[in-house]
């Protein structure tokens, strides 16, 4: 069987694909951004005279040069484009330069003289919440509070045979997309602007840029695809405003491509969180009460901080039915960079904590942890975690069964031949909401056209960041229409050419492509067939669409080119909203995906090093659209989560980055990952489900950390409550308990 090759494949493997940071235009200038050296300071003065005089410098801009709103942020524009009075993190921009060369622009930055008066640095949520702490924003240091309560928590706790309380700490993770932020912004002759910079929502960038530039949206074209990775990190604006302002002020194309250091300093990260969970179980193994507090370090600006906290709150009890739940979350402003959107969107953090609780509770009552999960897991008709109706599937149980089978097979192999090593097996499960949630504007849409040249063009306002949306579009379109891939052309990522489809986030792309085609296909095919019938003089009923054109009696009667020729294009568009729960519960999700993960680790007792030797993921996300893409999302997501579990932490000290590049911030390399990653898709959905395939961009990252953590416990008896798990922690724990000397069997230690 011929392998399905991605539409963007050939250009990628040959190096011919032009990423937006590869573009060059004649007369192009290079931009550089001056960022604050202080995590918190008052700006006393900014002097740009010397920089302006440097030969080769063509523009130097500061807050005075922002014609529109000097602020950005997907929801609340509280981040200054160019700071005027105050800087709140070390990535805050104060000035920007355009020059003939990168070197000249860099030198010019050194000639800009800014006087600062340092202010006290709030380098933790605790500090920011102290009475008398300086206020980072007019409304104080609390960005957002969220919570959820059901049942009578105290009386349920009273019925419990065991209660486990633990505080979990999860780190600040770097997206580490291989292509750092950048692109070229081109001022066009007619006064409009073309922005060739990657993002996950071109129309949203256009909206934000129009507001900053004081320019009508129609005068801005955003070309936002392809990207060398994003993972949520490029959804918020990054260098676009500076490139745009510099291009407008010089009248020339301006290229900015951040170095890795610049990228780490300015980019958003995954929210570090401190999560305290107190969970009770009765003697029959039923979860009764689950109390959680979440403290999120959201950094200096809002971006999507509120929505991420809401998501975390929703996912706190995961796929379990618990009679009493009490969750309180707070997202706090600090001077620690900016936290924002990242694959998993708050689900990763709480799932690590929840699945840690589940294993601890099972141990506390001496019950098999798989059995305990089975006893408490949600069933097809159960309500969602916020009490909302959700699309009914048996996904939770399906992935549990699938993972349990793997677990049962792998667990006995936990004997290690090497006396200095211990092997352990762990599992975890989760459910993860797709789309933006109830009450959030979540419009989608697409367009099908038969162009004059006979191509069927399918267009969406999505971006290709590597996730494979092009392959998904190709597969779904050809399957639904019945034509061949040569018959279609795909148009995405250009606000001047595509309809708005909403953001390329929240695992919504695949779903929305499928839903669009469901809506577009009938009217489109109808129009095609009507025209074909007229052209061929055949009855419509005898014609059908096939590869290459219109078919009759097993033969192609009319090519798409013939069908298109000398007539106006056939165009069908659709606009609709991502499906939401009929229950009006703010931020609640409707379409969920599920995963069950089994990890096996080998722990070196002498070095404390943890090696993940097996990683199995079972997924329930509806039918697989594109096998290779699905596999890649889950494998890649799994390894990204492996890094989160064992290696990755953007360390900050007093508001400054300690890890500045990929030499101190380590992401998994080929030696850090299991050679065989296993992915199993449980594709079944209830017969009446008409929501089609769900996206799998995030689900592969969610339950990996707790599975590895539970495997570490199984291996050496260390209860992990902090990520990443460092060798020192392992050594300290094993030494304290005498694991190395065999004075205690490895599994009996713990709390």
């Amino acid at each position, binding site marked *: 069987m011929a*392998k399905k*090759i*991605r539409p*963007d*494949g*050939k*250009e*990628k*493997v*040959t*190096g*011919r*694909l*032009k*990423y937006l940071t*590869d573009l*060059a235009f004649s007369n192009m200038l290079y931009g550089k951004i001056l960022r604050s050296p202080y995590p918190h300071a008052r700006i006393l003065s900014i002097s740009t005279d010397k920089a302006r005089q440097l*030969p080769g410098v063509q523009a130097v801009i500061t807050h005075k040069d922002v014609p529109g709103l000097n602020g950005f942020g997907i929801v609340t524009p509280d981040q200054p484009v160019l700071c005027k009075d105050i800087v709140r993190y070390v990535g805050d921009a104060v000035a920007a330069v355009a020059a003939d060369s990168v070197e000249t622009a860099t030198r010019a930055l050194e000639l800009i003289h800014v006087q600062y008066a340092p202010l006290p640095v709030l380098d933790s949520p605790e500090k920011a919440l102290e009475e008398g702490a300086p206020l980072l924003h007019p409304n104080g240091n609390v960005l957002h509070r969220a919570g959820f309560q059901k049942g009578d928590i105290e009386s349920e706790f009273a019925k419990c045979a065991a209660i486990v309380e633990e505080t979990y700490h999860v780190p600040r993770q770097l*997206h*580490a*997309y*291989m*292509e*750092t932020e950048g692109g070229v912004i081109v001022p066009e002759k007619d006064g409009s602007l073309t922005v060739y910079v990657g993002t996950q929502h071109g129309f949203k960038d256009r909206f934000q840029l129009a507001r900053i530039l004081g320019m009508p949206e129609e005068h801005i074209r955003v070309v936002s695809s*392809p*990207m*060398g*990775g994003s*993972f949520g990190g490029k959804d918020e604006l990054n260098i676009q405003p500076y490139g745009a302002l510099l291009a407008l002020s010089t009248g020339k194309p301006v290229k900015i*491509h951040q*170095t*890795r*250091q610049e990228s780490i300093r300015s980019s958003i990260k995954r929210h570090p969180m401190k999560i305290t969970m107190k969970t009770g179980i009765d003697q029959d193994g039923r979860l009764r009460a689950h109390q959680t507090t979440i403290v999120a370090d959201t950094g200096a600006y809002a971006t999507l901080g509120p929505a991420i906290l809401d998501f975390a709150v929703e996912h706190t009890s995961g796929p379990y039915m618990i009679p009493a739940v009490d969750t309180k979350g707070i997202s706090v402003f600090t001077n620690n960079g900016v936290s924002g959107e990242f694959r998993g969107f708050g689900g990763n953090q709480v799932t690590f904590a929840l699945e840690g609780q589940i294993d601890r509770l099972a141990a506390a009552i001496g019950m098999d942890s798989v059995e305990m999960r089975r006893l408490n897991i949600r069933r097809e008709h159960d309500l969602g975690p916020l009490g909302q109706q959700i699309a009914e599937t048996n996904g939770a149980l399906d992935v549990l069964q699938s993972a349990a089978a793997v677990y049962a097979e792998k667990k006995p192999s936990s004997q290690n031949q090497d006396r200095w090593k211990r092997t352990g097996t762990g599992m975890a499960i989760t459910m993860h909401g797709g789309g933006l949630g109830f009450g959030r504007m979540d419009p989608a849409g697409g367009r099908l056209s038969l162009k004059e040249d006979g191509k069927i063009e399918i267009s969406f306002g999505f971006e290709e*960041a*590597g*996730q*494979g949306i092009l392959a998904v579009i190709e597969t779904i379109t050809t399957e639904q229409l019945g034509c061949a891939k040569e018959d279609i052309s795909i148009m995405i990522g250009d606000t001047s050419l595509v309809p708005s489809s909403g953001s390329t986030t929240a695992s919504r792309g695949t779903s929305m492509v499928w839903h669009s085609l469901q809506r577009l296909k009938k009217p489109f095919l109808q129009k095609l067939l009507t025209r074909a019938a007229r052209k061929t003089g055949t009855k419509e009923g005898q014609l059908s669409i096939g590869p290459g054109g219109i078919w009759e009696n097993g033969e192609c009667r009319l090519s798409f080119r013939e069908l298109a020729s000398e007539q106006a294009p056939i165009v069908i568009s659709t606009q609709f909203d991502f499906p939401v729960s009929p229950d009006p519960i703010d931020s609640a999700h409707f379409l969920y995906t599920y995963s069950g993960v089994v990890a096996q680790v080998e722990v070196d007792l002498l070095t404390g090093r943890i090696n993940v030797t097996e990683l199995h993921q079972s997924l329930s996300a509806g039918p697989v659209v594109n096998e*290779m*893409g699905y*596999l*890649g999302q889950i*494998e*890649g*997501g*799994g*390894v*990204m989560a492996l890094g989160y579990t064992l290696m990755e932490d953007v360390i900050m000290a007093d508001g400054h980055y300690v890890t500045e*590049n*990929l*030499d101190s911030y380590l*992401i*998994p*390399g*080929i*030696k850090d*990952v299991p*050679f*065989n*990653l296993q992915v199993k898709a449980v594709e079944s959905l209830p017969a009446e489900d008409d929501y089609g395939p769900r996206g799998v961009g995030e689900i592969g990252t969610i339950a990996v950390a707790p599975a590895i953590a539970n495997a570490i416990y199984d291996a050496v008896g260390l209860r992990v409550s902090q990520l990443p798990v460092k060798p020192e922690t392992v050594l300290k724990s094993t030494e304290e308990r005498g694991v190395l000397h065999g004075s205690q069997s490895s599994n009996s230690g713990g709390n």
Partner: protein
Amino acid sequence: MEANHQTAGGTETVSVSFLLNGEHIQLNVSPVMRAVDLIRGELDQTGTKISCGIGRCGACSILVNGKLAVSCLLLAYQLEGASVITIEGLSDQDEVHPIQKAFLEEGGFQCGYCTPGMVMAAKCLLDSNPEPDRQAIQEALSGNLCRCTGYGGIIRSVQCASSK
């Protein structure tokens, strides 16, 4: 390295000549210009990528006299007299290299940004060891980071290319 020159701006330049994908290149460059900037900028061969700039990710990998090198740590003038192969030199318009074909068929890439470097590293491996085992693959690709694939597809691609 040959004679030094002065440009109009008064900055010193050095002349460098080398073979890039079989084509003779001769030009004057700043003595501090990195090879990656020469290749991506002056020569507009953007298949070679730039990511960390400090030799840790392999996105900028090229072959210099058959050996794998990170072009962000090489200065342009150091290419003097060398034969340099970049990703663009691996295939012609219609035919992709067998390694590239394997990456296509086995899902050895997603965003594709690490891919040129990864393919160069794989080529370097397979040139010297046509049937690498697991350890050899891990060793040879350990300088190349990929954030998208989790390496599963990359390993399958190299295994597939090696059995051919």
